[in-house]
Structure formats: C-alpha cells, structure tokens
C-alpha cells in the first residue's frame, strides 16, 4: 500500500510537471509572430528623343514661299521618341520665327500653321505613311494634344512649315533650331 502511494505520488509529480511544461511551451511559441511584407516600385524607362530628320525646304527662290507638308517622307521634320511603352507624355515644341543665314547678315521668316504637325504613336518613322488611325494627324504644333502615349515601338512627331523668303533675300544656306521637349505626365 505504501509503495503504491509513493508510486501515485511520483505519477502526480510527473503529471504536474508535464502539464506545466506543456503549458509553458505553447506560450513561448505563440506569444510572438513575424511577418515580412514588401515595398515595391517600378522605374519607367527614361525618355529618349532624337531628331532623325531635319525639316528641309531645299532650294527656294527669293519672294516665293515654300511649304513642306508634315506628310513629306523626305523633307518633313521627324522627331523620334522612345521610353516606357504606353506611358503618357506631354509634348512641347519650341519653334523658330526665323531661319538665319549661316554666314550671317540675313534672316528668313518661317511659319508653322495650325495643322503642320502629326504624331505617330506607331513609331513608324515615316511621314508618308501617317494616317489618322495612327495617332494625331495635322494638329497644331504650338499646342500639341495632351493624351499622347509612347507606342510599343516608339512615337514620332512629324513637322511641316512654310518658309517665306523676301524678294531681296540674300542667297545662301539658312537654318534654325526646332526644340521638342517631352515629359512623362503620369497618365
């Protein structure tokens, strides 16, 4: 009988110890937790612009204005834009009022009409193949549209204008700068 009570005592001690250990172990495991979240961001491709073809009036005569259409494949000005495909961009053209004689001493008026620009979102790079379905055709270069995107293969701006030489325009080569600025607009 005494032996059985001692055995019972030992069993109880053992049972209480197991209970206490079992109680403590889950507490130490479940009392804390860790989660790993993330921060993420995507940097868009940088915008790149190149003037791939100058607006070229060729040879002209004193007193005879000459227009180059924005659909002229060999003479229209061409700006080629590349960057993040489908990203919205804002375009701004800074246009000259005059072309200047390279040797100096004279200027020639150049005007850009309200339909002298086209924007080709297919990136074809060919003014002669431009169509309304490819973007914006015959728009005002002084106020380019706001919803332009960079096409999957780029976007091009085609530009025409009219040179107006004076009757006594000095012979020689004239030139001027056309600046196109392009910014992502977040659209």
């Amino acid at each position, binding site marked *: 009988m005494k032996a059985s009570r001692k055995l019972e005592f030992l069993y109880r001690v053992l049972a209480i110890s197991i209970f206490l250990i079992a109680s403590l172990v889950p507490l130490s495991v479940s009392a*804390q937790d860790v989660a790993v979240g993330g*921060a993420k961001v995507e*940097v868009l491709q940088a915008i790149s612009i190149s003037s791939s073809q100058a607006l070229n009036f060729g040879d002209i005569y004193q007193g005879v204005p000459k227009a180059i259409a924005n659909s002229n494949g060999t003479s229209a000005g061409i700006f080629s834009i590349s960057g993040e495909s489908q990203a919205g961009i804002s375009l701004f053209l800074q246009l000259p009022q005059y072309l200047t004689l390279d040797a100096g001493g004279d200027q020639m008026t150049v005007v850009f009409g309200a339909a002298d620009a086209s924007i080709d979102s297919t990136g074809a790079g060919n003014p002669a193949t431009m169509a309304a379905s490819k973007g914006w055709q015959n728009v005002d270069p002084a106020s380019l549209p706001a919803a332009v995107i960079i096409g999957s293969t780029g976007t091009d701006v085609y530009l025409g204008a009219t040179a107006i030489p004076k009757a006594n325009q000095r012979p020689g080569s004239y030139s001027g700068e056309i600046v196109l600025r392009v910014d992502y607009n977040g659209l």
Partner: protein
Amino acid sequence: MSPRITLLLVAVLLVTSVADSTAQDFDDRSATARVMTVLSVTATQDLNFGKIFGGVPKVMGNDDDDSSAVFSITGEASAGISVQLTLPEYLSLADGSANMTIVFNNSCCSIDTIGTATPSTVVGGFVDIDPRTSPSGVIVGSGGAANLFLGGKVLPSANQKAGAYSGDIVLSVSYNGT
C-alpha cells in the same frame, strides 16, 4: 542494552517511520494556466509606389487603401502587444545592380486597434505615428484583430536604372503581458 529494550527501540523507530510515511498526503489543488490565443501577423498588402519617373520622388501615404502597406494582426482580444518594424533603407532591382533610397518619416504609420479599419478609415488607435518607435498601449482589438498601415517615400535618382525595385518590411509582434 537488553534485547527487550533494543526490540522496543526498533519498534518505536518502525512506528515513527510508518508515521512519517503515512503523514504524507496529496493536495488536489493543481497548477492552472490558460494559453492565450495564438498571436499571428500577416503582410496582407505591400507598400506599392507603382510606376515612377527617374529623378521624381514619390510619396505614398499610410491612408491609401490600394497602395499602403497593410499588416493584419490577430490574437487574444484586448491583450497588450508590442510591435516592432524593421524598415529598409533601399529598394533593389532583382538582379542587385541598382538601389533606390526609401525613407519613412515620423508620421507615416498608423495602428488600428479596433481591427476593422482600412488605411483610409482608421480612427481608433494610433494615427500618423513614427514607424521606428513602438508606442505603448497597443492592444489587439476587442474582436481579436488589429492592423498596421504604413506609407513611405522613394527617392529615385535622375539616372535611376529602369525596372522593378523591391525591399522587405518586417513586422514583429509579441504579447507584452499588459
């Protein structure tokens, strides 16, 4: 000592031994403990800055339902907890070829101790606090849940290499006995 006396002493010792042995008893009182509900935290939404441009910093608030980081905590209702965020200093391209600075100001974190809020609706708990400090008094909500919302700011360089950048945000939570 006579054998009779010796026998008597042995008998006394035996009786004493028996008395000692039988004097032991057991108390039925037992040790008790209640294990609290397991404390769990899950990163349910990443801090997402979306698409950005080189050289143009972008801020994401802690109140943006679609883009703020969200950590969801579950555990014992109304139990006090300690929260500790480990924040990245940079986000990195997957190939490790470029980093971008990310900063967390002293008000870009909110903790919803009601447990039912979204980033844009949090009002109970701790609003616009410093994510680097663990405020005292944070509890699991009465419904057994709490949430932590986090914003931040990325600072891409002007010539930041294009691509997808990411970094880890680690939240550790533990019961603090309050």
